[in-house]
């Protein structure tokens, strides 16, 4: 990849938003989690979490599975294959952007 600020354009903006990044990270390290678990782990309000999950579901990054566990309704959330791939790509792109930066800024290298 060339040393070009346009690399930033490759960053997936849907994932880059901090709350959605937290949701994606949390779901990336587990097989699935339910709404309450995500809410507790990420310290989000139900409305906020729901809004971000809807956006991720629209992009087909998150799968929302409605099921019954012991006759009680249960909502399981997990990353889709597309979502998992998008998250890995996001990691790679972000790493690339920072590795393209010079090691020291101009200010740091200035002699007194």
């Amino acid at each position, binding site marked *: 990849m060339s040393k070009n600020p346009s690399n930033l354009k490759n960053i997936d903006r849907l994932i880059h938003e901090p709350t959605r990044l937290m949701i994606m990270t949390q779901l990336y390290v587990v097989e699935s989690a339910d709404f309450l678990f995500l809410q507790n782990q990420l310290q989000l309000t139900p409305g906020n979490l*729901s809004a971000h999950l*809807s956006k991720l579901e629209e992009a087909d990054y998150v799968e929302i599975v409605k099921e019954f566990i012991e006759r009680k309704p249960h909502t399981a959330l997990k990353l889709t294959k597309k979502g998992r791939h998008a998250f890995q790509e996001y990691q790679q792109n972000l790493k690339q952007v920072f590795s393209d930066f010079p090691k020291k800024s101009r200010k740091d290298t200035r002699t007194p």
Partner: protein
Amino acid sequence: MNVKTSLRAVEKKTYMSYHQDGLVDIFVGVYVLLFSLGIFLRTVEDFSTWFVIPAIFPAVMVPIWVSVKKRITMPRIGYVKIGARSATKLMAVFIGLTVAGLGTFMVFSFASSQGWVLTVRNLIISNGMIIIGITAIAISSLFAYTMGLNRLYAYGLLALALFLAGQFIALQFEYILLTIGLAVIINGFILLIGFIRKYPLQQGDQTNVEKSL
């Protein structure tokens, strides 16, 4: 911090959050207490099958454990299915410990009466409490590291201190087990009460939003 490290930190935090309810402590404490009870029975009533109770405990307690988790933990912090990697790591520790345990058993049971095996066996017998203490801290540290539960290090240290004391001031084995079991159970209940207070049962708002998804 690189990406892998921070992902591992999230994974560890997730795993830890599932064991902050103290249930693991209560069940481990009860297991240790059953061992001590078995030894008491052997001493008082010549109960030769003293090891039967702790041996059948896991089979009896696993369904109870699952049921308690469903009733206490999941309604409060939600449900998570941990990835296969963590489960595999824990399984590897269990298998390793079982193999080590069987190896030790073989040394004690079938070792010939000559050679280095006998020397090792005599060394183990004469320093029994120290060996058990070191084994206890090694096993608890292994689980503490694998599961990310730092309090298991403290239990290991407690066991080591008590078994060392047992070696030098002749404390009886069953009393040491009783003390460790009670300490772990009490801490488990303290954690459980704290967990129930920290995470009250949620109704209404969250459930309605969840249904709208």
